[in-house]
């Protein structure tokens, strides 16, 4: 079954793990024209994320956002996907690894299986599945768009093999299938094996093992999921009743000293719990009570603090700071009694809930630890892959990179960042010698449909419950069948699934269709998939029209299903009438400029620039100030103790000396034109302010953020009040002064998590602890107080937090409504705060007040650049990525990528990872030699043109001109496709392709037919 010839020698990258990280890495590599072998031990890829119902902070359905990625990876020609496969042996060195891979038998021929489900219906016991709560799962496939889109047989359990073989109409059952062993040679390895969820069964006090209504957060997710065991019905496992009161208990298996539990923080669980609570509230409003029991609320990610505020303020989710010690079944009421000590009290409280969700942490599975041994990479004390502060995705063994959970516990966006970063490092290893294979998907020649009578095919997705759950999708398809020129009209399951796409292609060919209407989700996300299907079926891709009956109908009118159905009919009719007028169009294709512009010369910018330059690209590194280095120049040590100054110095040297990097200091970007692959950016270069234009294909924004300096707590007024950065410098440069201190007070969240700057600055908790530990090293007697709101020492930083406590650093929590007060008393500062343990105000006379002021977006640069590049920003002025979850580096303007603190506050290590990730994304875009500007360009009908110049004046880009023949001409290479000229032309001589007037009129006709 596996074609051995497909496996390329040496220049191939092995990606281990088919979760989001593995998929992202594989796709980045493939787009950069590296061959990839992607293996996963499961029988379909997708990993943990495919089991989630929604993801934070957008509460989107993951399947919808992830599935296009999955099927994309399925069809990527550079990717060889091997499911049910594991590494058996590893030999060799970077650039030349030899691996032995073992693939378990599936007993099903992937080529033949259509995933029809007949085998499962007849012999459910011998078809494999392991979804969240598998005893109630309705389907053996883990999720509806599974890749490979095929079943898997558990031959052991099969009693009637002959019967099973017969039931398969596709003749896909292979009872003789055997385990296969094969050797592959690869140049680099990307580890993305993920993590496993802590098993709370061992913790007797929480009753997980004994009580079915105590579930893990992942199980709860499956219960909520439309594709889950209950088809989205929220019911208690014990009795199938809808719960009225649900509790979440945080830090189960994390930040704990229990047997088998981890001491680190699992980073993602706070948001996970908040999301589940919010989704629950969204669905059931006030009929369900929700409570989260937590120690510190760690919403440190981008815009996560706003999410927390929404949970508290808009959804009325109760947040209780306490660690429950037991969950017991209340025998009288059949509910669960949680006993805990509230934060502001010393007495135990017992409260009843219908369901308890345990926010279980993540840990590295034994399998993965074994794999690490085979690979010969070092693990840290928590069994995660060991990496270096300044090379965040490189393992201890060269040529092997790690991303996602196996590096440290993290959420999806950070996983995506690391996946791209790892892909980048791996492909960098191969870049110099790799002979890149150049193969493009071949499409059959396009059929000439101009003389054919209209033959329209309508395909209506039910999109699981998304469409089918609200309206009668079949009825809609039937209705479409009554419309003029419609030859075929049918309902399909998930239209975007591979199976459905193949079906559409076949139908086009069989029925000789020449126009296609898809009733499904937004064309914004899925148009390309259907266009490709048309091309495979020999039709021009512009002969398809998509009726957005999901995002703009069933999702927003589920409260009025009858109206939604009527509207769906209108939308389908609109698409059908308008597709009749569509005609074949040719895309405009131009050569790609492969130069890179990196804006911002801090650690992030330099890493991105060096990465791209090492790959062989010419890089312009534009820095607004006179020198490289950015904020990192003010930082001396990381919390792990690494020397930041030495690192930055070395980085600057490498950057300055690289012959493919041109550093432009004192550069102000003043204008920008063009499109991805052919940008032109104008600079003014100080001090002489001379003007210079650069042509480039992609842009990486690494403009950073500024150390915040809020006018609070006498900062800037009193000489002994300083920021953590000042403290860092003082420890480094004046250790003697540190030795003389007796009382040091640090205040957290100064200028962050406040109305002016609502988000968490992420870095301050660890930097306060870092400085506290360094002070402690120099001065063992000084009292160090850290006044905090939530200690957000996520991941392994928790270890340092623990260490600081052990070394006597005094942590005192304060509420946002009662912040500490500071008074200057001569040289000293009197800091007064409320001590919740003592339950009274306490004053400390301190000789040094150190404020954790965090970062604030550089409004100036983001304002200028946001305007010039047309890039949206968050309310706190950070650049807004295209998709907060799955595309954390890509900006909404294609060809633009963001990295570092311009995206959101983060540590140096995280910045480096993101810089590498941005380089990877840029690299994957530059992997193409041409750029496609689509077909939406304005065309002038010369005969009608009155040469009035109105288009010449109206065009925002000054593209039209009056040619020698005396009529307006628009260069397709320059046309941006806005259609403003078409709208103003008084002679109606201009039409915008894809949006021609008759097509818009047809849409109106389709939409309004009923009205007249």
């Amino acid at each position, binding site marked *: 079954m596996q074609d051995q010839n497909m496996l390329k020698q040496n220049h191939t990258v092995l990606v281990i793990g088919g979760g989001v990280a593995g998929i992202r890495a594989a796709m980045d590599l493939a787009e950069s024209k590296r061959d990839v072998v992607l293996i996963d031990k499961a029988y379909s890829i997708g990993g943990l994320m495919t089991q989630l119902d929604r993801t934070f902070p957008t509460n989107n359905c993951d399947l919808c956002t992830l599935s296009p990625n999955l099927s994309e990876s399925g069809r990527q020609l550079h990717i060889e996907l091997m499911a049910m496969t594991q590494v058996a042996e590893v030999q060799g060195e970077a650039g030349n690894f030899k691996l032995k891979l073992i693939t378990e038998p599936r007993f099903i021929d992937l080529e033949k299986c259509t995933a029809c489900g007949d085998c499962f219906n007849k012999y459910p016991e011998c078809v494999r599945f392991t979804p969240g709560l598998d005893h109630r799962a309705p389907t053996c496939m883990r999720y509806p768009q599974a890749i490979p889109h095929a079943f898997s047989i558990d031959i052991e359990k099969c009693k009637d093999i002959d019967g099973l073989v017969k039931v398969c109409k596709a003749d896909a059952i292979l009872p003789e299938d055997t385990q296969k062993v094969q050797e592959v040679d690869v140049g680099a390895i990307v580890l993305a094996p993920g993590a496993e969820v802590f098993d709370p069964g061992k913790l007797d006090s929480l009753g997980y093992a004994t009580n079915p209504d105590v579930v893990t957060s992942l199980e709860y997710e499956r219960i909520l999921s439309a594709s889950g065991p209950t088809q989205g019905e929220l019911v208690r496992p014990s009795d199938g009743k809808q719960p009225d009161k649900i509790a979440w208990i945080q830090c189960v298996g994390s930040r704990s000293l229990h047997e088998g539990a981890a001491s680190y923080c699992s980073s993602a669980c706070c948001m996970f719990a908040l999301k589940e609570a919010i989704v629950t509230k969204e669905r059931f409003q006030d009929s369900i009570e929700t409570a989260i029991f937590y120690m510190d609320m760690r919403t440190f990610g981008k815009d996560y603090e706003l999410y927390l505020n929404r949970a508290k303020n808009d959804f009325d989710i109760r947040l209780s700071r306490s660690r429950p010690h037991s969950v017991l079944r209340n025998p009288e009421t059949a509910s669960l009694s949680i006993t805990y000590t509230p934060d502001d009290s010393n007495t135990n409280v017992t409260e009843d809930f219908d369901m308890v969700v345990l926010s279980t942490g993540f840990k590295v599975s034994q399998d993965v630890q074994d794999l690490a041994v085979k690979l010969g990479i070092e693990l840290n004390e928590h069994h995660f892959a060991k990496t270096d502060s300044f090379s965040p995705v490189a393992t201890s063994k060269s040529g092997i990179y790690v991303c996602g959970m196996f590096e440290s516990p993290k959420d999806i966006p950070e996983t995506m960042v690391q996946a791209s970063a790892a892909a980048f490092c791996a492909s960098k290893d191969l870049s110099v010698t790799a002979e890149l294979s150049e193969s493009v998907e071949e499409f059959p020649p396009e059929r000439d449909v101009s003389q054919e009578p209209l033959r329209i095919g309508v395909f209506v997705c039910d999109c699981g419950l998304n469409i089918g759950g609200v309206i009668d999708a079949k009825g809609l398809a039937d209705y479409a069948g009554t419309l003029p020129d419609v030859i075929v009209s049918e309902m399909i399951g998930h239209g975007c699934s591979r199976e459905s796409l193949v079906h559409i292609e076949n139908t086009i060919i069989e029925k000789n269709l020449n126009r296609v209407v898809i009733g499904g989700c937004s064309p914004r*996300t899925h148009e390309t998939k259907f266009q490709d299907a048309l091309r495979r079926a020999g039709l021009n891709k512009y002969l398809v029209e998509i009726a957005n009956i999901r995002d703009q109908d069933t999702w927003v009118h589920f409260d009025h299903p009858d*109206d939604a159905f009527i509207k769906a009919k209108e939308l389908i009719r609109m698409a059908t009438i308008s597709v009749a007028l569509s005609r074949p169009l040719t895309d405009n294709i131009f050569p790609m400029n492969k130069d890179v512009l990196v804006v911002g010369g801090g650690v992030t910018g330099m890493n991105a620039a060096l990465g791209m330059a090492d790959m062989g690209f010419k890089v312009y590194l534009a820095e607004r100030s006179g020198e490289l280095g950015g904020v990192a120049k003010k930082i001396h040590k990381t919390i792990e103790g690494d020397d930041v100054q030495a690192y930055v110095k070395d980085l600057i040297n490498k950057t300055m000396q690289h012959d493919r990097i041109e550093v432009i200091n004192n550069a102000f970007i003043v204008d920008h034109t063009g499109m991805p692959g052919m940008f032109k950016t104008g600079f003014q270069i100080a001090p002489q302010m001379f003007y210079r234009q650069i042509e480039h294909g992609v842009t990486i924004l690494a403009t950073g953020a500024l150390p915040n300096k809020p006018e609070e707590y006498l900062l800037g007024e009193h000489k002994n009040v300083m920021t953590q950065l000042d403290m860092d410098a003082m420890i480094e440069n004046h250790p003697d002064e540190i030795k003389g201190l007796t009382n040091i007070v640090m205040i957290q969240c100064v200028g962050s998590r406040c109305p002016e700057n609502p988000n968490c600055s992420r870095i301050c908790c660890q930097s306060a602890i870092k400085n506290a530990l360094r002070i402690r090293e120099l001065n063992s007697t000084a009292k160090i107080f850290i006044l905090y709101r939530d200690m957000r020492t996520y991941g392994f930083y928790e270890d340092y937090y623990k260490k600081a406590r052990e070394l006597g650093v005094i942590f005192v929590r304060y509420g946002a409504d009662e912040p500490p007060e500071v008074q200057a008393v001569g040289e000293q500062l009197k800091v007064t705060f409320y001590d919740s343990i003592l339950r009274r105000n306490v004053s400390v006379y301190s000789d040094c007040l150190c404020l954790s002021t965090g970062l604030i977006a550089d409004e100036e640069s983001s304002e200028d650049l946001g305007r010039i590049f*047309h890039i949206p920003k968050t309310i706190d002025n950070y650049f807004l990525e295209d998709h907060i979850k799955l595309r954390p580096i890509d900006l909404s303007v294609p060809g633009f990528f963001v990295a570092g603190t311009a995206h959101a506050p983060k540590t140096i290590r995280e910045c480096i990872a993101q810089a590498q990730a941005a380089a990877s994304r840029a690299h994957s875009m530059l992997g193409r030699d041409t750029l496609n500007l689509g077909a939406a360009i304005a065309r002038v009908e010369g005969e009608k043109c009155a040469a009035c110049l109105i288009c010449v004046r109206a065009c925002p*880009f000054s593209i039209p001109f009056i040619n020698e023949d005396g009529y307006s001409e628009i260069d397709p290479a320059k046309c941006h496709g806005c259609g403003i000229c078409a*709208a103003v032309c008084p002679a109606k001589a201009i039409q*915008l392709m894809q949006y021609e007037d008759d097509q818009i009129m047809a849409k*109106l006709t389709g*939409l309004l037919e009923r009205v007249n």
Partner: protein
Amino acid sequence: MENFEPTIVAFCCHYCAYTAADMAGSKRLCYPSNVKIIRVPCSGKVDSIHILKALEMGADGVYVAGCLEGDCHFKNGNIEASKRVAYIKKLLDEINIGGERVEMVLMSAGMGERFAQTAVDMTEKIRKLGPNPVKSASKADHAA
């Protein structure tokens, strides 16, 4: 006319309002199904005749939704559209259809809430204005 349910056509810019409408979808923000969206690459592409034809064909209200001021992907298409809508409003006043049936709204791609709210507001407003006189007159015509 008590149960009058207006039909409203919204011309939405691909880059902002259309995306905002999708966003409203992914956030499951309900709004009246009276609003039907036609996607355009830029609000500046919406021709006066498109608006008029929508009304002529019986729409009770029309709005053009473009990007926030200064955010147009094509520099100033939204401003052009605003001016055009103002011109059409005057023309509609002249022929007693009422310019208030047509509006220009601005929003960014992330404003799913604003999209839903606009749909609610517009539906409410048109409901108060009553059916498009073009339509009701021709219906009367049919009845007779």
